[in-house]
Structure formats: C-alpha cells, structure tokens
C-alpha cells in the first residue's frame, strides 16, 4: 500500500516552492525525519523531511519545478509507510467530504484524496499524456524512443510536454534529472542552468536566436535572484525614496565595544557593532513611530508598529537575504549578537526558515563591513525606512577647533517620503547618532 507524501505548508501562507534538489532517489529506504528534498521559498531554502519510514517509489517533480503545497511529491511503499496514518490534509479532506461532520469511514481514510490543484501546466501535462495513451501507445519520435533506451528510461513513465503529450528529448532529460517531471519551465536553457554554479551547462545550451552565444551567458532569473529583483522594483515603484546622509563618530562606541568584546568572548559571542546599532535604533524608533511603520495601501491607513523587529541585509552566495532579529527592544546586546551570529551562519548555509526572513519593521544594511563610504539603500518595502551603514575608519575631524583623528562612519537613511518628511528623518538620524556616539547615554536609554 503506497503512501503519498504531500508538500507540507512550509511557512506563513506560502502555497508554492521551487524544487532545489532531491535528497533521495527512487528505491531508497528512507527513515522517518530523513530529509527528502530541498525547496526554495520566497527567500529561504528549506529541507523537507519524511514523516514516514519506507521505500521511495516515485519522486514527482524535477529540479526547478514550482511545487504546490499539498501536491504529492514523494510516493512510498513498504509496510511502515502503509501503516502510517494519512497526513493531516488527507484527513481534513476526507472529514470535509463526510456528511454532517460524521467520522469518515475507515476505508475512506485509507483512500488518498485527489491531488491538490496544481499549477495549470502541472495539471495538464499528465492528462495530455494519459489521453494520448488509451492503447498504451507512447507518443514519441523513434529517435526519442531510442534515446530513452540509451538513457535507461522507461519512456511509458515519462510525462510528455509536447503536442498532445508527445514525449520530447527534453522530457527525458528532465525525467533523468529528477523523477517524473511536472514541469513549469520546459525550456532547455532553464533546465540546464538550475543555479549559477551550473554555468558551463547553461553556456552549452542552445542560445536563443540572434544571440552571440560565446559573448554572453544566459542564466534564468529565478529563485532568490528573482525575488530580489521583484522586491526592489516594487519598493522603488511604490515608495518615493529620499536618502539623507550624516556621519557618526564611533570612537567612544569602538572603545566600549573592545572592552565588551572580552566579556562577550567569555560567553562565546562575537561582538560586532551591529547589536549596538540595533539597540540604538530600537530606542530611536520608539521616539519616532513614523519610521517604524508602513502604509496599508488597500485601506489607506498608516500602520504604526509597536514591535521592533529589525532585519539586516546578509550577503550570501545565493544572493541577498534579510534575516530578522525580533523584539530588539527587549533583548540584550549579547542576546542580539548571539542570535545574529546564528542567523548569519544558517543564512549562508541556506538553512533559514521562511519565518526567520519575515516580519521586520525596520532594516539595516551594513555595507561598511565590506567597504564603501556610503550608499543609498532601497527600502525593504513595505517598511518605510532603511539605514545604510558605511565603513568606520579613522578620519581627521574638527573637535573644539582642533583637527583630531576620530573613528568615523557615514550613515545613510532612505525613507518613504509618503510617510516620512525630511525634518522627521533628520531628527531621527540626529537622535540615532547621539545614541551611538555616547555609549553611556545608549546604556541609559536603550539597554
């Protein structure tokens, strides 16, 4: 008796995820909680683990496919798998179907519900294939049938994406790459280049007509990159950006931080400037509620947030991530430092959960850790302001009529001028700088 594993709900209201890779193969004996597949949601890649032990009989979907939450992704057989109760969705579906809320019949429980509605492409392809095969006939050119044999593929198992469900050579390659492909992106180029690291394959793929293939490389815009692209455009289109730049004297805070570093090291904590920024921001945001806010465009309302969840831009190989430290106002510098370290490590490994990348009320982008004097950050919409931190460096400045060397950094605050006016923004920056320049004050106001 087969067990069908459906893609579970992976986080706040997500209903689809991109298949990044299979972690098991057909025929594998899988233990409960063993990772089955890795998917890419809006910003995180997530490993999905098996709810049962059993032998994998079918993997549904190819790398790069968009999988629908609730659709069957893995099929198991084996006694243990069969002995498992149907998953919650199955129960829910059956319960909903039972009249008068009566408990569903035993046999009904064992019957898996029909697959959840998938994407149109996913729903159509198998239908078309099935429709073309009442006589057991596979629609495929002789050369494709031979290719299937050479690849060791049973072509009758391959869903065809060609006209009337014809199986194409691409379908075979997709099938070979990852089980019975339900494809949403049937172009060969997209298949050949699931990630930047597959660049040589992408280059080998036939270039679109008119493209001087050798002079450029084409990589499908998908995954994190696509999300970033969409978000940036949405922010810029929605929020009229203004950026104000000022400088902060970090000398005192740097001295304070070097003292605190030793304390932190004893606790195994690496202490950067950022947790101090976070504390200063939380304090300043409390005083300037319009900077910890958003606009509900639909209801035409201003939403002033009473929580201080601060996101920070994290540079990873896959692209920009923004992990969120929650309730910054209620956490210690050490706590924040510890949390950030964890978020950074898991973020770079692609192991963050979707809800760790959501819900920020204000965002910080610390370009300074890499370099650069200052920059004009793009607001992490629907937030209304973002702080960009330039690098801290010793610079000659004038203090009490004297040129002295101080550790200076530029701060750039981009704000949504729909909600925040220049005066408010400037006063907010002044307050932030005041807190950062005076660790004693920061201690009194924010810790």
């Amino acid at each position, binding site marked *: 008796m087969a067990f069908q594993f459906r893609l579970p709900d992976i986080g706040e209201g997500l209903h689809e995820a991109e298949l990044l890779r299979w972690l098991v193969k057909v025929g594998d004996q899988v233990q409960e909680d063993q990772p089955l597949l890795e998917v890419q949601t809006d910003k995180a890649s997530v490993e999905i683990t098996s709810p049962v032990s059993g032998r994998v009989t079918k993997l549904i979907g190819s790398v790069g496919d968009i999988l629908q939450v609730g659709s069957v992704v893995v099929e198991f057989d084996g006694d243990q798998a069969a002995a498992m109760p149907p998953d919650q969705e199955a129960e829910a579906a059956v319960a909903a179907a039972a009249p008068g809320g009566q408990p569903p019949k035993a046999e009904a429980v064992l019957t898996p519900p029909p697959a959840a509605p998938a994407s149109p492409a996913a729903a159509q392809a198998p239908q*078309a294939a099935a*429709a*073309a095969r*009442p*006589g057991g*006939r*596979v*629609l*495929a*050119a*002789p050369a494709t*049938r*031979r290719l299937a*044999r*050479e690849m*060791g593929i049973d072509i009758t198992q391959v869903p065809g994406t*060609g*006209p*009337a*469900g*014809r*199986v194409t050579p691409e379908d075979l390659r997709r099938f070979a790459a990852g089980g019975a492909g339900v494809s949403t992106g049937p172009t060969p180029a997209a298949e050949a280049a699931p990630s930047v690291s597959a660049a040589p394959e992408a280059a080998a793929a036939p270039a679109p007509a008119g493209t001087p293939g050798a002079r450029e490389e084409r990589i499908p815009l998908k995954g994190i990159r696509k999300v970033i692209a969409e978000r940036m455009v949405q922010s810029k289109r929605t929020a009229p950006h203004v950026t104000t730049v000022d400088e902060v004297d970090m000398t005192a805070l740097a001295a304070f931080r070097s003292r605190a570093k030793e304390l932190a090291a004893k606790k195994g904590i690496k202490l950067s400037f950022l947790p101090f920024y976070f504390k200063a921001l939380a304090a300043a945001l409390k005083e300037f509620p319009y900077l910890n806010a958003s606009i509900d465009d639909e209801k035409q309302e201003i939403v002033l947030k009473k929580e201080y969840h601060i996101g920070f831009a994290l540079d990873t190989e896959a692209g920009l991530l923004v992990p969120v430290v929650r309730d910054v106002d209620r956490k210690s510098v050490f706590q924040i430092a510890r949390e950030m370290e964890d978020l950074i490590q898991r973020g770079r490994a692609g192991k963050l959960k979707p809800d760790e990348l959501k819900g920020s009320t204000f965002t910080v982008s610390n370009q300074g850790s890499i370099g650069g004097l200052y920059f004009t950050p793009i607001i992490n919409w629907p937030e209304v302001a973002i702080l960009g931190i330039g690098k801290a460096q010793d610079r000659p400045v004038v203090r009490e009529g004297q040129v002295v060397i101080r550790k200076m950094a530029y701060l750039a605050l981009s704000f949504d001028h729909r909600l925040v006016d220049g005066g408010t923004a400037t006063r907010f920056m002044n307050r932030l700088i005041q807190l950062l320049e005076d660790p004693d004050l920061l201690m009194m106001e924010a810790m």
Partner: protein
Amino acid sequence: MVMGQSKIGTDVLVIGAGPGGYVAAERAAQLGLAVTLVESTHLGGTCLNVGCIPSKALISVGDLLHKVKAAEERGLKVNGSLELDFAKTQAWKDTKVIKRLTTGVASLMKAADVEVVRGTARFTDPHTVQIDVEGGPAAIYGFKYAIIATGSRPVNPSFFSVDGRDVVDSTGALAFTEVPKNFVVVGGGYIGVELGIAYAKLGASVTIVEATEQLLPGTDPDLVAVLMRKLRRLGVTVMLQCKAAGGIQDGKVKVTDSEGKVQEVPADKALVSVGRRPYTEGLGLEQAGVKVDEKGFIVVDSQQRTSVSHIFAVGDVCSPVMLAHKASAQGRVAAEAIAGLPSYADWQTVPAVVFTDPEIAYVGLTEKEAREKGYDVVVSKHMFTAVGRALTMGESDGLVKLVADRQTGVLLGAQMCGPEVSELIGEVTLALEMGAQVTDLALTPHYHPTLSEGILEAAHSLLRNIEKTGKGK
C-alpha cells in the same frame, strides 16, 4: 558430434538468408561480431526469390500491358497486335531482377565479412548446429548466439493439395512458363489476389475463391469496395463464402457455395494461397530448447530473444504478420541486442501494402480498431477523383482515409486504396512513428500536382471534422 570432425566457432550463427537473416547478419558483422550465415536454397530468401520481388515483376508487366490496352480512351491505339512473350518476361524477371538482387545480397555479405554457408542447419544442442553442406561433408558449428530466420512456407491443404504441376503454390505460380487460360485462385488473401490480377492482366480468365465474406480478410471494407469494382472491370470472377476442393478434375475445379450449391469452374492451373506457416521443420528446435506457440511460431520477446536467451528469432518464423520489411527491422534489433545495444522492436506500426489494382496500403489503426481501443475516433476520407494527378493518370478510383483521436488530434492510422498508395503510405508511417497530430500533416506543404495531395486533403477534412467539436487543437 561425429568423431574426428572439428567444431567451427562463430559469434553469431544466422539461419536463413532472407530479408530478416541477411540484414541481421550484416548488422551483427558491422558491430564487430564474427558472423556465419546459413542458407539452404537462395540468398535473399522467399522475398527476393519466390515472393515480393518476382510477384511485383510480373505484376508490373501485367500492369503495363493492361495500361496500354486500356489507353485507347486517351488516344493511344496500338496499330497491329500487342503481343506478350511470356517466356521472355520470365527470363527478364529471373535474370534482370532476381539475379541482380541476390547477387547484391552476396556482395553485401562479402563486404560485411559474413561467412556464407550453403546448406541446411539443424540444432543438435543449445550451442551447436550441424550444417548439411551442399556437396560436402556436414559441418559442425558452435556459436555464442544464433538468429533463426527461416521464414515461412505456403500451407499445402489436404482439400486442395499442391501437385507442383497444375495445382501450385505461390512459388509455382511465379514460375509458369506460359499464362494459363483458365486460372483458379484458391484463397483470396493478398498473395492470391495479387497474382490473380497479374495473370488476369496477362490474359488469363481468373476466378478467385474465398471462404470468408470478403477478399483480403481484415482489410478495411472501404478499400476492398474499390478493389471489387476494379476486379469486375478486369473480368475477374470473385466467389465469396465459397470453398474449392479436390484439385483440378477434367479441367475443372469444384466450388461449393455457402448454401451447398456446387459449381464447376474451368481451370487449367490453380493457385493455392490459403496462408503461410512458420518454417521450423528439421531445425531441431527441441534440441536447442526453443519454444514455439500453439501455431508453431517461435516465441520471442521485444528484443527478438527466444526462450533460450542466446538464441533469437526474426521474421515470419516468429509472427503471423509476415512482412519482409518487418523481418529486416527485427533482424536489426536482434543483431544490436546481441551486440549489447539497447535495441527493441518498439515501432508503433508496421505498414502493409497489397499490390493489387488499385494498390491497397494501410498503417496504424483502422476506424474499428481505434474504437475498440477506446479512442474518441474521428475519420475523414478523400477520394482520388478529387485529386488532379490521379485524373491525369487515368486512375482516379480510390480514396485516402485517415483515423485520428478527436480529443488530441493525434493521428492513429491511415488506409488507402488507389494509384501508387504503396509509396504514399510512407508519409503517414513516418507521421505515426513521430507521434504526429493530423495538424502536422495538414500544415506540411505537399507538392502539386501529386497523388500525395490526397493525404493533405484528407488531413484538412479531418481537421474540419474535429473543429465541429472544438477539440484536438
């Protein structure tokens, strides 16, 4: 094994040099295997020597004679007499056609480095054959693999047994030294009808006796209807649901109809063409351990492998659908499978052609078969009377019929009767193998004016039928 005889080793031993065997031998040799090909009579087998090729040679001569005679309407008149020198026809057939082709096979085998042994092979155990070599001592061959391609032989029924003189099988009918005056054909399958028409055109008075209710049993009735019209014009008598028995008695054949009425049909020659059976006698299949089904056909899998995994069989000996082109394709599969290639006999269709007048050709599913398989069937027909080229040839009777699935527009089959349809069927065969939709046929430019426009028009007409239901796009 006979004492003192040495056993000759070979990789692949092919028994039978017909279109299945010689193609298998050539392919295996191309793939680097040492190949021995055993043939008891002539290279080329039934097809080249006493089947497809000689029959087509006679049919073509008959056609030519008939066309000239029938061209008076078109302003072609023979001044004087148009005579047939049949002995010359036969000599031409034997030397200029058959000899040339069989010599060609011999050169192919030589070029491919296939050892050809003339003799009769018999398995003595699963790894050994004894070959009774013509004019020499028996040879013992040990092989790693064997391919049985011994083909089929005409059935010689007890109710009308072949005597080789007046009552003949197809082999005998192809070797007549003169055209019979009264020619009775017993069995209205493709061999009987083809040769019946050929001899009718060459001057014989022909009667075809068929036990079932239709000539060419199993063929789409729409096609046979066209054929029947032409047979009437050619003066061929067709006796359906009738049985001939007892051979030729006093220049007559006794034919009994379904109601038991007996008629006497004049006959100086009779052809018995009631079917062919697999040729496995004397082959020693039991010694080899090769299994046959209840009808005597060798049982094979989709790689042509028999019940003994290193022994293969191809062609008529393993299938009641006896077609040379199928045997060749199977021979290729067997050779490649032996060489370890992932080859399978997985073609979707095998086209069939009957060289009647007009020709009949079909491939894929008929309307009836498609319905039985559960398709939502849509059919179209296009008559050759509406094809310009057919009219210019003076051969406008016939039709192209296409069968498709209404839901998907996928082409399922084609049946044709008309001029040169033996050539036209190739286009549809390719379309079927490619998994084409009827739209693919309709959107392919067809040259004008050609007979192939019949396929184009049938495709468009089928699409219009689909459009009425809004499916199959």
